[in-house]
Each structure stands twice: as structure tokens, then as C-alpha cells.
């Protein structure tokens, strides 16, 4: 596909995603934060459903050699980087998606978060240019490099090659685990909502637990 075609496809995809996220108020930050802080799972359930569909879809196509999986070595930097990211997204009240979507809604705080994401990236480029860690994609080998805290490359495709079992089989296992988490959440919600509901029903008829529409202001 031509560069222009790729950019156009990406823009159309992004536009639809932006529209759907805006209309549904989905937020990845809320999916994690609200589950931990308020025991509210509106966004968490949506995230799990998407991950189940994607796992089956991606591994299914990987089984027949289709698709464009991401290809780079991974290591401790993923864990540490996303740890910092996790703190940052809760403090900022927005993740990468919601900074863009909320900016589109006219949220100046989200624009400010976005601006400082860019600043953070630029600062990191200065650090990187001193110590050259984590290794640049060009110098990645796919093999573990413990000195650089890199574990190499592994995904559903490498599992398929190693064990001779279609990738989708592993995908089904992962989707089942995600489904088990989803079911546990639904059960937990029912258990906590039932007594509260009967207690407040005469007044409002609305469950007392917080729904995503009332996500605390950032």
C-alpha cells in the first residue's frame, strides 16, 4: 500500500475510533483506576470484551500467516516504562486515547497533558542519546540479551513455530482467561449491587454504585 493510502486508512480508522470513544465516554485510565479505587467496572468490562475479540482475531489471522504483528525485542523497559505511564495516566486523568478525544471535546487540561507528553518524549530522547538504552530497534536481534535487560522476541507466531500448534489455540486459551476475569467482575457487580439496589430502590431506582457517566472530574 502506498504511504498516502496508509495514512488515509489510519485517519479514517482514527476518526471512527474518536467518534465511538467520544460517544461512549470510554477511558482506558478509568478502566484501571475505577476498578481499583471505586470498584466500578463499566470501562473495565468494555476493555476485556475488546481484548477477547482482538485475541481471537489476531491469533486467528497469525495462524494462517496474515496480519502485521509488532516486531521488536522486549524486556524490562516495557515493565518500567508502563509503570511510569500508569502513574502518569492516573495523575493526568487521561491516557493516550483520552488526551486526544478530550482535546477534541475542548478540554484544555487534556491538551495540556498532551503537550507535556510531547515534552516528556523529547526529554527522553535526550536521555537516550546519552546511554542508548533501551536498544534501538535497528540493533535488535530477537535473542535474549540479558546485559541490556532484553528478553528477545516472542508472540503467538513464535509459539506456533516452536510447538507446531496453530496460534489460534493459544489465542483461545488467552481469551478464556480474559472471559473468566470478565465473568468474575460481572458476578462481583451483581453481588454488590443487589443489596444496595433494594436499599435505595424506593427513592431513585438507580443503583447506588457509580457508573462511568459520573467518573470523577479530572
Amino acid at each position, binding site marked *: 500500500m502506498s504511504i498516502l493510502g496508509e495514512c488515509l486508512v489510519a485517519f479514517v*480508522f482514527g*476518526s471512527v475510533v474518536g467518534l465511538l470513544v467520544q460517544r461512549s465516554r470510554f477511558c482506558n485510565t478509568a478502566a484501571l483506576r475505577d476498578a481499583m479505587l471505586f470498584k466500578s467496572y463499566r470501562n473495565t468490562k468494555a476493555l476485556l470484551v475488546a481484548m477477547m475479540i482482538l*485475541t481471537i482475531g489476531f491469533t486467528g489471522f497469525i495462524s494462517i500467516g496474515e496480519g502485521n504483528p509488532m516486531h521488536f525485542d522486549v524486556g524490562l523497559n516495557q515493565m518500567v516504562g508502563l509503570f511510569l505511564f500508569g*502513574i502518569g495516566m492516573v495523575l493526568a486523568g487521561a491516557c493516550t486515547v483520552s488526551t486526544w478525544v478530550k482535546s477534541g471535546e475542548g478540554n484544555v487540561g487534556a491538551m495540556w497533558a498532551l503537550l507535556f507528553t510531547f515534552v516528556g518524549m523529547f526529554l527522553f*530522547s535526550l536521555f537516550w542519546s546519552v546511554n542508548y538504552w533501551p536498544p534501538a530497534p535497528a540493533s535488535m536481534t530477537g535473542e535474549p540479551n540479558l546485559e541490556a535487560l532484553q528478553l528477545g*522476541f516472542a508472540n503467538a507466531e513464535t509459539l506456533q513455530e516452536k510447538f507446531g500448534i496453530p496460534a489460534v489455540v493459544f489465542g483461545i486459551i488467552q481469551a478464556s482467561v480474559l472471559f473468566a476475569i470478565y465473568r468474575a467482575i460481572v458476578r462481583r457487580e451483581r453481588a454488590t449491587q443487589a443489596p444496595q439496589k433494594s436499599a435505595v430502590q424506593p427513592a431513585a431506582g438507580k443503583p447506588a454504585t457509580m457508573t462511568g457517566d459520573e467518573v470523577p472530574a479530572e
Partner: protein
Amino acid sequence: MEFFKKTLDPVIALAAIAILDIFMFLIVGAWTVGGGETMMTGLMAQAVLGDDLERIPFWNIVFKPDAGYWKIYISLGMLFGAFVGAVASKEFYLRVPRRLSEWVLITIGGLLMGVGIRLAFVCNVSTFFGLTPEMNLGGYLAISGILAGAWVGSLIYKKILES
């Protein structure tokens, strides 16, 4: 139109996004945001610093500024789509954080997100909507990191809420 009046169920929205993301995976690659943001950072830095940017090896070796990088346009699309959605449903208005503490938190949060994405080579979107569904080892490492980070962040947030 009903679509612009009622809040959409996030499960339906995310299921639709997941199906579109599978098409993206087949055509160019799974949904991601961090890579595009990095390229935008590079392009902006190039606009300000000009040729001096070449003195920072990162922008030569890891990300060479290139406006034809498809991931940039996912982000611009999201901005556009959200703007259209907000205007059509009369939800567009300028919201400005009122307290200084909010500005400080957003600034620190933004910086941590930017540094975190670059250190990890992935953002939260590629973690949940790309790497993990591809069963990439990096996805599991990233999820354990982001869960721990969100937990620590929530503790800090709770402290601030209570104070």
C-alpha cells in the same frame, strides 16, 4: 439522531473498535498511539531546532522525523472524530482546569506518560489493543507494569482527594 443524544454502551463501542482494529492489523498494523506521538514530537522539534536536531542521536537512530508515518494520522483522526462527535451532540465546550493543583498533576502526569511510552517503546493502546492480543511477551510485561503503576497512581490520587 439518537446516536448523538444518548451515551453509547462502551462494550458496543469497544467491540466495534476491536473489529476495525483487526482490519487495521491486516492492512497496516494494530492500533497504536505512542509511535505517532513520538513522530509528532520529532517533527515539532525539527520545526523549532532545524538541523540542530541531528545532534541528538535518538532522532537519527530510533525515530527519523517523517510526516508520512501512518501512526500520526490515527491520532489526528481521533481528534477529528471526537470533535465531530462532541459538536454533533452539543458537548463541545472549553473546559479549563480551575485549581493550580490540577494543572500541576496534569503536567506531572503528562511528563510521566511521555517518558514512560518512550522507555517502553509502547503505549497503553498497543499494550491492550496490539501486543497482548498478539500474545507478545512485551504485552504481559507492559500490563504488569501499567497495573502496578495505576495502583500506585490511585493511591496518590486518593491521598490528594482526601486532603
